[in-house]
């Protein structure tokens, strides 16, 4: 009875999207927990010592980057041996889940000949990939 209700209220692509989002959220959550535990327990040393954080987290981001020597964009990929930067794996994964969900529903929409929504989903993937690319940077205030 409950399954029948679900079929009536949600389309195939919506359920597919929901299923992937659920899995992705859980994986991302697990990544965050594990990486933060590694950071907190001190298995990997942080790039920025925790005792320095109070003097840094009150600074504007550009001063913080200048003071710590951290670079913008995907430079954290080269610093995964540092406990604090390891957390960016989970953060980036959560930022990528939506892209994967949209990508996954495009074939369903095409099979259903819902070409307008397939195009919208493809455009959404493009927008999110552009945002994640690191090509768009600001000068700061």
């Amino acid at each position, binding site marked *: 009875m409950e399954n029948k209700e*679900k079929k*009536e*209220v*949600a*389309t195939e692509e*919506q*359920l597919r*999207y*929901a299923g992937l*989002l*659920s899995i992705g*959220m859980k994986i*991302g959550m697990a990544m*965050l*927990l594990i990486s*933060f535990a590694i*950071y*907190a*327990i*001190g298995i990997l040393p942080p790039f920025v*010592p*925790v*005792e320095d*954080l*109070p*003097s840094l*987290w009150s*600074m*504007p*981001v550009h001063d*913080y980057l200048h003071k710590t020597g*951290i*670079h*913008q*964009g*995907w430079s954290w990929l080269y610093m995964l041996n540092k406990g*604090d*930067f390891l*957390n*960016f794996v989970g*953060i980036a994964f*959560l*930022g990528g*889940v*939506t*892209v994967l969900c949209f990508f996954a529903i495009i074939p369903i929409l095409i099979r259903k000949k819902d070409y307008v*929504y397939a195009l919208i989903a493809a455009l*959404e993937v493009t*927008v*999110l990939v*552009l*945002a*994640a690319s*690191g090509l*768009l*940077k*600001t*000068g*700061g*205030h």
Partner: protein
Amino acid sequence: MLSLRRVTVVVVAAIIVAGLCSMAFAESPVTEVVSKASTVPWWVWPLSLFVLTFVLGVVAVLGGVGGGVLFVPIVGGFFPFHLDFVRGAGLLVALAGALAAGPGLLKKGMANLRLALPVGLIASACAIVGAMIGLALPTNIVQTALGITILGIVGIIIKAKKSEYPDVKVADPLSTALRINGIYHEVSTGEDINWKVHKTPLGLGLFIIIGVMAGMFGLGAGWANVPVLNILMGAPLKVAVSTSKFLLSITDTSAAWIYINNGAVLPMMVVPSIIGVMLGSMVGVKILAKTKPAAVRYIVIIMLFFAGSRALLKGLGIWN
């Protein structure tokens, strides 16, 4: 199943608390030096963030707003973090809350993919522009404009008489062509609610502004999504609230990436906040299915009024 969830919540909370305590004790000699300047041990702040965001996660789902709209003024006002990091964390908090709530809302048909996709595309593209503007503009100007906007939206919601089940007599040609309609089961009354929308072109146009503002303020966009989807386009309040919540996962993803790539993300702030809001959102979804639409509406009004007042007063330098 319920006990498994409880165990998960307890285990995750224990990891956060134990981890922060572990760091606090491990670094105690140096922390003591830092504490002289701040008077509060550094680990109190991330621990407090975890507790605060759990509560915000529950409330945000019920109100159909991103956790960010409450997170940014509260954390920005009472925690020692710079607003750049608060906005980056706020977007990720809103995103995490939406990711946690999204699957349940989509499966129940309360959030609607066909409604969310067109508006999400526009909002997410514009959120990129907004995020870049927000990181370049003086903070007080952004906050003042935000406060005025949110208080204006509160006024619109209070004046609206048919927001729980708006009367949409005829769907507009665009929403008909895109087949933006649906049915959801209202648990509190036992009814199946058929719905459709109107004024779609104007609604899509407003999501240009919503997207820019979401990225600029770093606050998510639920505070604006709900009025446009519900009051303007005519989606039932629960569909509007749920679709708005899901929509945040699209809009805030693009804006959050701009903040991540510009360095405005501190793991010590973000991770306890994200975990707190995700756990809170899971609890909020359970409550939402059993809550009457009128109750949700009052929660939206109270939360938006508080958040708007806070942003306006801080922007004007009255309440710093």
